[in-house]
């Protein structure tokens, strides 16, 4: 019965199947690439660790106390660092494939547990910062498009460069001195209040929004000259309407495409923001891991961060055609930056 149904399929459904097959191949290909990137990251991190002058155990022990060679030997064998490099490579890779990231040397906890403890806090901070970043960026892009006064416009256009240059570390300390010590409205230690989330998130949004703004400004400028925008303007639509319904929409794709970079900036920024604002989180754990020379922990964090960046890129690649149907026209599913061409 089923066989018959398949064999008499209409040409239209076979065309649909072809498309489906192409999409499946495309998605499978992208997932394959993602796995390849992850494997490469693991390998690069592994090689980097092998190139260190000593192994993670000696490194960890030596930071605070004189290391006893016997003690080093014992721990080395406990953590498997006494094996030949190829055995370590395969063993760790097999563990990774099973989702095991090994044990943190500084806490003895499984790396995943250590990360799991704080990942929620970073996600909340990073998501809030991202929302702020997007809002800042759209506001600046809108300002640059809508404000005609040339001096003010020049000022607005300069904002991204200024934000990119502001040291988050310095800004965070100033914000704390003002809001926590002088005005006493922001607790130095996060207490779950809205303000203790919003202020650090706004600070973290600064470095994150700089690249977003730059891309958005450029593409708004380019989109503004496209024929359909000029048509909309000629129809007599208000500049605000033109911006929201035509320019912004057409400019979103490139901005979304840089989200991968933005996620990287979020991780880097969270190291600083979480340290300054005494917030628990991945950035804080990463910094501690680096200071304590906890190689398995840092390795795990690098691989997880790569995973997040790779997944974001994957999702973006899959979403872009939906945002900007012009991309599908050329049958090029991966192409970005075709605007204005």
């Amino acid at each position: 019965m089923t066989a018959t149904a398949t064999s008499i399929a209409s040409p239209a459904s076979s065309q649909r199947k072809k498309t489906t097959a192409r999409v499946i191949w495309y998605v499978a290909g992208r997932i394959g690439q993602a796995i390849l990137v992850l494997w490469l990251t693991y390998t690069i991190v592994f090689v980097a660790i092998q190139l260190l002058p000593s192994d993670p155990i000696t490194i960890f022990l030596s930071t605070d106390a004189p290391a006893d060679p016997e003690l080093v030997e014992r721990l080395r064998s406990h953590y498997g660092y006494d094996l030949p490099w190829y055995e370590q490579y395969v063993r760790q890779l097999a563990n990774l494939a099973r989702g095991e990231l090994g044990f943190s040397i500084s806490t003895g906890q499984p790396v995943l547990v250590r990360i799991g403890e704080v990942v929620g806090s970073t996600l909340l901070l990073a998501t809030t910062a991202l929302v702020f970043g997007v809002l800042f960026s759209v506001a600046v892009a809108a300002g640059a498009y809508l404000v005609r006064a040339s001096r003010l416009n020049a000022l607005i256009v300069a904002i991204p460069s200024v934000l990119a240059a502001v040291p988050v570390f310095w800004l965070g300390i100033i914000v704390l001195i003002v809001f926590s010590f002088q005005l006493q409205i922001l607790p130095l230690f996060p207490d779950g209040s809205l303000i203790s989330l919003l202020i650090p998130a706004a600070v973290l949004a600064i470095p994150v929004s700089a690249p977003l703004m730059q891309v958005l400004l450029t593409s708004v400028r380019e989109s503004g000259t496209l024929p359909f925008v000029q048509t909309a303007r000629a129809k007599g639509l208000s500049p605000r309407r033109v911006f929201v319904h035509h320019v912004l929409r057409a400019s979103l794709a490139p901005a979304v495409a840089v989200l991968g970079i933005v996620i990287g900036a979020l991780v880097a920024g969270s190291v600083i923001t979480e340290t300054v604002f005494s917030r628990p989180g991945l950035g804080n754990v990463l910094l501690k891991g680096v200071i304590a020379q906890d190689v398995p922990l840092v390795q795990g964090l690098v691989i997880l961060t790569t995973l997040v960046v790779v997944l974001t890129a994957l999702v973006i690649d899959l979403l872009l055609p939906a945002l900007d149907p012009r991309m599908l026209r050329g049958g090029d599913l991966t192409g970005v930056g075709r605007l204005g061409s």
Partner: protein
Amino acid sequence: MSKSRDRLARVFAGVTLLALGLTACSTPPAADHTGATATGPVEGGELVFGDIELQTDFQTQRGFNYTQTNIFRSVLDRLTDTDPDTGEVVPWIASEWDINPDNTEFVFTIRSGVTFSDGTPLDAAAVKANLDLLGQGEDDKGIVPNRDFIGYESSEVDGDKVIVRLSAPNRDFLRATAGSTASLVSLSTLELDYEGQADIAQIVGSGPFVFESEVPDELVSFVRRDDYAWPSSLSTNQGAAYLERIVFRGIPEVGLRVGAVTSGQVDVARGVQPSDEDAAAAAGLTVDAVETPDLTANWIAFRGDAPIVDDPAVRHALQIGWDREGLKSTVLSDSYELSGSVLNRTAPGFVDLSEQIEYDPEEAARLLDEAGWVEGADGIRAKDGQRLAISVAASPRSVVIRPAVEYLESQWRALGVDVTNNAGDSAILTTALGDPEYAAIGSRQFYLGGLGPLFSGAGNTNTYYDDAELNELFAQQRAATDEEQWNDTVAQIQQRLVVDTGLVLPLWDEAQVHAIGPDVHLSFDGGSAPLLQEAWVSE
């Protein structure tokens, strides 16, 4: 309603201030200094201790960082304690002890009636189990022997006594039992794997405070144990703690520590930098530079076999080629004392060698000239084509080490020495500690088991130098039969390390500078851990 509007107004005020960028240098408003009239300890209340960071590993053997010892002091008890004024070992859980003339057998009498917070007794059997783990480690758990328990063989229970046997004489074994790494935990804790023993929530101790809660990377809190009655013999409070609850938090950013106390968000902050001390005092805080006889002084150790500094003339020239007083006046503050040896002035056995390492630029230059280091066109000396260039690494945890090495850098440059300052860079410190060829590292370390574990043998990460005479002196120190002999040997060790070999360059006595709120009554132990069992906060 008006409250939220007020809040909004303050946010706007904040944004305005921020935009003007006026505030970075202004001082915080002075704290309301009520000047509590001390009528005696007040029961109850909470104390928040702001440390430089929060620890996550609490396995006692790894408890050699301040951030761990500060917490252990309030949660775990030890066999003995050290007097912060004299360095003398005094009773705690061991009410008395007896040492055989050979320093190979130690008999500890265990105080009766001591219990862990789970109700099990802290008796001789529990002490033996702890000492065995400390002395022997546990291979399959990845727990290593305590480095200060040199020669530990076995323990035996005899009634309320524990008899410890060592394979070789070690008089310093007694002092080692006062160390934070020798803190006592319950039998159930000892049964845990490494992960369990490292988890503060799972550690069961007999101390004055009991674990309450932990928010990873945010805080750890403890509550008073009402039936606590066995503090160190030094404690001014022989019963339960006055404070109801203690909370530890981390303030990694050095510039925020004083503000955290003035704004009342913590009661005490550790790790105050010299430049903030005046502001803290002006705001009504007590600036307490806590001396630490349980640790060595701050020093720079030269790697005896590393290129350039393997030349004793270079080491000696570096020792005397900088103006010591200048370090104190430009980098440090009145909270710090320049050190006269590898040990702190307050440590037992300290000998003052400062006259022998006094600033003498002419002599320093003469030493280098004589050794063949000739000044080149760039002002840096060289010998056989090799420039007189050294690197110095040190821990990022000290608030003063980096500027101190910057000062040395400028002083040594005048002598014709090129210095790369890597102090405060933990990545470089890591490499440097594992690399015997790296010229010099700055440090200060707990040394309750004597200086032997820090400087003996070719494998020690401080000097990487195997000096037969030093090794012999360390053995003599452990075998010393009386205090005089011990003091004499410790004096010879200091002389050998600092003056004869020039391997160690003394900097300043170790001190941990704390900013303490006006209502807080707090003292510290010999390793600068806060004594929260006897602390109190006035209303």
